[in-house]
């Protein structure tokens, strides 16, 4: 018995360095994610930008120098950035910095909820479509294609015009229009994974299709899903901005980055900073999301 024991000891000792990790085998998900972000400078930069806006949103009442809706026409004498108003004031004399900070709240609440509802819906549809195949697959995918073929902006406008502009409707419309893309990703992974041996082993144990889809298949879509969710967060930030710009976003006077651009773009040649600064804010968040997504993808490929 001693010989095989020794063999195993050697085998065990061998596998740990081969796996490239001296660290304990099972690290927490959070730690693993942190290790992934840490491995890529691009992801770090993206994460830092997002974190910055999250902190702004979280501590808005304390960090914003002025109330966001306080109108002070006297400031219009000199609306440009100054020591009193770091980023200047808008056409009604409201402090732009404060409005940006408060506006981060809107976008950072609405965008993640919208993306997560899209992900939830997309995951369900993708799993069913990939695992069941046949008619269910054909129906789900064709409906999704139809939705994707439709110009999104027009879809947004129709729905918002019909049901009215509210946070809930923004979330619903973004959720529904993004779900087909996420469904495609999950379906692709499902099609690949469902023919793997471990799924056959699960079937031979008599696991239910629900168990196989959620426990055996879905975790393997984690990687591409996380990357896509961050990309989609960026796109959704743009979409919310566009909706605000088209006047079907969140109702005024609450600060909304897209709305800020809409209200001031007529004055872009007189007071350009009023339009450009909120536009830069939107871009920064979008770039942050894209960088994080790119970085995560690269880190995942290396590891």
């Amino acid at each position, binding site marked *: 018995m001693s010989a095989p024991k020794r063999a195993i000891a050697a085998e065990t000792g061998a596998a740990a360095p081969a796996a490239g990790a001296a660290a304990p085998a099972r690290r927490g998900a959070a730690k693993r994610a942190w290790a992934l972000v840490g491995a890529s400078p691009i992801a770090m930069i993206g994460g830092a930008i997002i974190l910055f806006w999250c902190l702004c949103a979280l501590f808005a009442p304390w960090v914003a120098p002025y109330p966001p809706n306080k109108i002070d026409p006297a400031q219009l004498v000199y609306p440009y950035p100054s020591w009193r108003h770091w980023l200047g004031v808008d056409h009604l004399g409201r402090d732009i910095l404060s409005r940006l900070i408060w506006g981060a709240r809107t976008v950072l609440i609405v965008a993640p909820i919208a993306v997560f509802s899209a992900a939830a819906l997309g995951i369900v549809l993708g799993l069913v479509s990939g695992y069941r195949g046949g008619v269910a697959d054909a129906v789900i995918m064709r409906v999704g294609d139809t939705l994707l073929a439709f110009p999104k902006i027009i879809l947004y406008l129709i729905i918002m015009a019909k049901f009215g502009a509210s946070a809930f409707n923004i979330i619903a419309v973004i959720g529904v229009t993004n779900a087909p893309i996420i469904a495609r990703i999950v379906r692709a992974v499902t099609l690949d994974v469902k023919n793997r041996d471990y799924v056959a082993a699960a079937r031979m*144990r008599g696991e239910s299709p629900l168990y196989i889809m959620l426990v055996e298949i879905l975790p393997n879509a984690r990687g591409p899903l996380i990357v896509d969710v961050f990309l989609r967060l960026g796109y959704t930030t743009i979409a919310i901005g566009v909706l605000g710009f088209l006047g079907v976003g969140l109702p005024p006077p609450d600060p909304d980055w897209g709305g800020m651009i809409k209200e001031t773009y007529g004055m872009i040649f007189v007071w350009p900073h009023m339009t450009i600064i909120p536009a830069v804010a939107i871009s920064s968040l979008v770039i942050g999301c894209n960088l994080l997504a790119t970085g995560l993808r690269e880190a995942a490929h290396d590891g």
Partner: protein
Amino acid sequence: MAEVLRFESVSIDYIGKAGRQPIVSGVSFAIAPGASLGLVGESGCGKSTVALAAMRYLPPGMRISAGRILVEGHDTAGMSDKQLSAIRGNRIAMIYQDPMSSLNPVMTVGEQLMEVPLLHGVADRAGAYRRAVAMLGEVRLSDPELMMARYPHQLSGGQQQRVVIAMALMAEPALLIMDEPTTGLDVTIEAAILELVRELRSKFGAAILFISHNLGTVARICDRIGVLYAGRLVESGDIRAVFHRPAHPYTHGLLAALPRLDASGKGGRLSPIEGTLTAADRARAGCAFGPRCAHVVVAECTERTVPLVEVEPGTGHVARCARLDAVRRALHAAAAKGGGEAADAGAPILLDVKNLTKHYELGGRFGGRARRVVRALSEATFQARAGQTLAIVGESGCGKSTLAKTISGLIAATRGEARLGGADLARMPVDRRPRDLRRRIQMVFQNPDSTLNPSHSVEFALMRPLKVLRGMKQAEAKRQVARLMEQVQLPPELLARMPHQLSGGQRQRVAIARALAGQPDLVVADEPVSALDVSVQAAILNLLSDLLRHARIGLIVISHDLALVRHMADWVAVMYLGRIVEYGPADRVFAPPYHPYTEALLAAAPKPDPDEGPPKVILGGAMPSPTQVVAGCPFASRCPRKLGALCDAEPPPVRRFGDHWIACHIDLPPPAAAAERVARPAAGA
């Protein structure tokens, strides 16, 4: 004349995130014009890196840190890109494992072949065409003119590899580097390709650097051999010397771990090489094989660099071992073999399969094409017995995996029955089987990469079947998991690991533990070790047969490797084109009378013996499509002993010799006597 290729203590490093890692250290060898050198070793030993270095084709991050590589006497280090590309393809040609990766899918075979002389400016289009056609004839492709106009995807794997060889020979290179050229191919096709290489070598006089993990193929091609371990050449010499009198413990272990066709029957244990090759071994100061070696002595082996020592002076047979004499004495003393155990027809029948048939329907509905029926499995009849091993052998596409899936319930049969106890499994896919029946049949899969879910820990993978199949609660299941890990000889620390942190052998052990978790009566193993290295393979096979014999569990093992089947099976079913053509106790299937197909398979199987002559029978052609309706014998189109029109017209009669039967028209003589079997002494033992 200078050697075509010479490595002078070449070291190659990989510079990555983790710093500098040695991949190859101090490798020296030389290949004379027309000679052939085989490089063997386990995965990760650096053999492919050596091949790439010879072409100066190292991937980014790899760097030659010491030594010189000379091609026909010229140092490649100082060459410009232009000079290098003159060598590549012109003086040295390379043949890779996957022929599809060296063929351009959008160009016809002819265009690709003609490109070689055109590019090197040695012929005009008409001349190039003539040479290409001639070369296709040389690689024994029938109808070369027609072949010229084909696209790569229209050819079979064996034909593709022939085209690649033709392409490599077009430039009349001085050296042909072959990196696992036959690994993905069936044994009969492999045998034909190897014969072709031998033939062409003597005809064109090209030297060969042949890289393989398979000692059998190397024995067939090469006259010298080098054994690589952890990036170091541990033994090299004349192929006969190394195979018959291996000096290094690693070489000896590799040869001993190999299941052999000529072994005296079932039951002898293979001797695995313990442990696995690790990244750390490449950087070790002393002997890289030290951690796995039974003869290791501290200081002597571990502290100093071990030099290459002459085994027999004057023969060029050298080994990198510090304790050569001690090892030689110890190995001589240990040359004992375990006895065999005959198939026991008295063991209770576990699974009784009669006329099991599976037809798939292709096309129809929306396809537009006419509906075709794939006859994946036709009228299979056999029994699996408790505590015994039934092996199902055949080339890829013969229906052996379909058979496994039908029994395990992943697909439902079209006709026939498969009785396990009182239940008929044939028409009962797994989701309709009651829990107890599901528990009784478990499966071990081929691919260690996909057998475990990468998202779940080992513990999760083992707990789940205990809970589902045996209704255990958490605490009880946990205790049982510990016992299972002990059974498959894995340390309990591995429970928390994720599959990607395990080696292939460890993963396959976990897969075996998972199959055993439900306390099955029958385990179906689909090529359980074909993706593993030889040394690990032996350990897994020993484990599997010990566990199953001990628990009286029946095993159905699907395999294409006859030597392995010879080693572990009690019963053998040989399949061809969805039908069983020969069935019986292993001893009798592996002895005359043979079905002509069994005979061809046995002849084609690579044998690790350099004195073995060319195979007596080489099958030409390819297996017919399973969509065709075959009226007569399925093997008639390739049978070397075909009688005539009778074979095509009538299904072959079943000739019975007791438990052993053969479906063939030839009037085979009954087995004269068991003693008549040719017994050859096992080589190298």
